[in-house]
């Protein structure tokens, strides 16, 4: 059999192809390497902490003061701050984001929607340090007019602004998933005599629910991990409280506060921020994975 015809330059093409596959694959691995880097760093740098401090103290202690001479390691004090600010943020972002998503997907004229959507996205593009400034120096004084006892640093103020920041995450993902609910379902409901809002609430909302749930879960993850707003406006003092009118440090704010001081490599302060970081990673990992699964589920359904 005669050898197959090989076009001139074909061998070079093949060589370039083989080279490029490897270069591109390297890029794909880079993302895995970053995750690996985060996990390995968190584990190795917080491991010495657990060699020094028994794990039960994280749960049993009621205060988080790892830098004091008689340290307490109740991480619950930090988690309380994170929980309260997150809940305040969600109480803004979930209702507001959902209403905006319903409005933009079902009610707004197409031209208005296309104009407004990118402008809403700008809200999540504002640097968080600017939001922090706004919470501390604009919103807090305003809230103090309504409620004079509000301290200069409060979880309420930080949480509210954080909620505004998260609105676009809920709205854009929610709106996308609502718009991909098939027209036929809406028309069926209209044919049965339902109004626009009725269709939106009884047909579109349930039909897009896994997409909306993904939006909520990712919003939680954002709120839990948000750093600068709470570090600037919610205070840096860890405190076991669920009152949003008080000031308290979150997990992220604690990391900032310790980082602001000079901390030698290997000191208990250095290790404690990695413990807080590991906590944060586990929390957000759970929400991120749940969000990913819900989104996948939604894409498969539609």
């Amino acid at each position, binding site marked *: 059999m005669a050898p197959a015809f090989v076009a001139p330059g074909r061998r070079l093409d093949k060589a370039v192809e083989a080279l490029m596959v490897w270069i591109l694959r390297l*890029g794909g691995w880079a993302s895995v390497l970053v995750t690996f880097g985060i996990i390995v760093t968190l584990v190795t740098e917080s491991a010495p902490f657990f060699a020094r401090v028994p794990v039960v103290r994280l749960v049993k202690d009621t205060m988080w003061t790892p830098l004091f001479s008689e340290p307490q390691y109740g991480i619950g004090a930090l988690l309380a701050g994170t929980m309260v600010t997150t809940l305040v943020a969600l109480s803004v972002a979930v209702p507001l984001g959902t209403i905006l998503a319903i409005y933009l997907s079902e*009610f707004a004229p197409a031209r208005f929607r296309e104009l*407004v959507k990118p402008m809403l996205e700008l*809200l999540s593009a504002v640097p*968080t340090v600017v939001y*922090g*400034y706004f919470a501390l120096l604009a919103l807090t004084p305003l809230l103090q007019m309504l409620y004079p006892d509000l301290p200069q640093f409060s979880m309420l103020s930080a949480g509210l602004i954080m909620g505004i920041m998260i609105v676009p995450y809920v709205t854009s993902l929610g709106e996308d998933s609502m718009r991909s609910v098939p027209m036929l379902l809406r028309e069926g409901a209209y044919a049965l005599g339902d109004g626009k809002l009725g269709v939106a609430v009884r047909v579109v909302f349930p039909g897009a629910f896994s997409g909306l749930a993904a939006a909520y879960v990712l919003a939680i993850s954002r709120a839990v991990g948000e750093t600068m707003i709470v570090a600037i406006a919610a205070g840096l003092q860890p405190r076991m409280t669920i009152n949003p009118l008080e000031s308290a440090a979150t997990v992220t704010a604690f990391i900032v506060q310790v980082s602001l001081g000079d901390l030698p490599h290997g000191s208990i302060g250095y290790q404690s921020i990695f413990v807080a970081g590991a906590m944060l990673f586990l929390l957000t990992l759970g929400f991120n*994975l749940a969000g990913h699964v819900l989104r996948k589920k939604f894409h498969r359904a539609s």
Partner: protein
Amino acid sequence: MLPEKIIHDLERRARRRRAIDRWFGRLGMVLTLITLGILAVLLLNLAMSGLARIDWHFLTSFPSRRAAEAGILSAWVGTLLLMVVTASVAIPFGIAAGIYLEEYAPKNKWTDFIEINIANLAGVPSILYGLMALGLFVYSFRFGQSILSGGLALACLVLPIVIVATRESLRSIPATIREAAFALGATRWQAVWHHLLPYSTGGIATGVILAMSRAIGESAPLITIGALTFIAFLPPPAFLANPPFVSFEWLFSPYSALPIQMFNWVSRPGEEFHANAAAAGLVLMVITLSMNGVAILIRRRAQRNIHW
């Protein structure tokens, strides 16, 4: 014919539904405008406290103990240099990863894993990138608290944004384009290089600009790697008058950055420093919002010009 009473009842209900719909439409419109209004109030608030501080002196001076003399020279130079490092790492790796995952990767467990990994990475709090950089770049690799460490941390942070944008714009190109190229004997890379990449430039550029704008505004990861210090000098120059003409010493220089400088001023007591913070915030907002604006325009144009 339905009895009069039922018809009347149906009409009443239909009217009520229409009223509810109209009411909700108005509510949605008002809430949308209020939400956008917050952005306007934010800008206005910054402008009112900070605009008076912005002048040539502010842009060309180092930070100072005296608020009125302080400026953002070291901050914006630092931000610029950080972005050089971030862009030169995040863009090539991000685009390569996007192309690999969309065009080359076989559908298997490993690819699924990378996919989940990227989804998670996009949601990892920014401060954790700072902790990673602190343990890895600052101490293990001994880069110190340098521009290199900071730029790499930000590059890792925005990598998922570039990857996702690249994948999405590749995905929107119809399979027929690839098949046509293959039918003419192109290798996969030739199809990517000559067809897919040129057609997805708009989408990728949008993603890259958004990623950079995110990196410019990020402060938490830089704080954990110790960028918050008093910097009243510039990093050594990158270009020299004598051979070898280029120097990379600046990579290892300490630095400040715009959001860090702003944070520093916010956390000080005193109206004057807060005015400086507002001014720095205004500069930061103008940069990030205009980058976002450009990204939106590019996306619009790319969508309008292409009809598959």
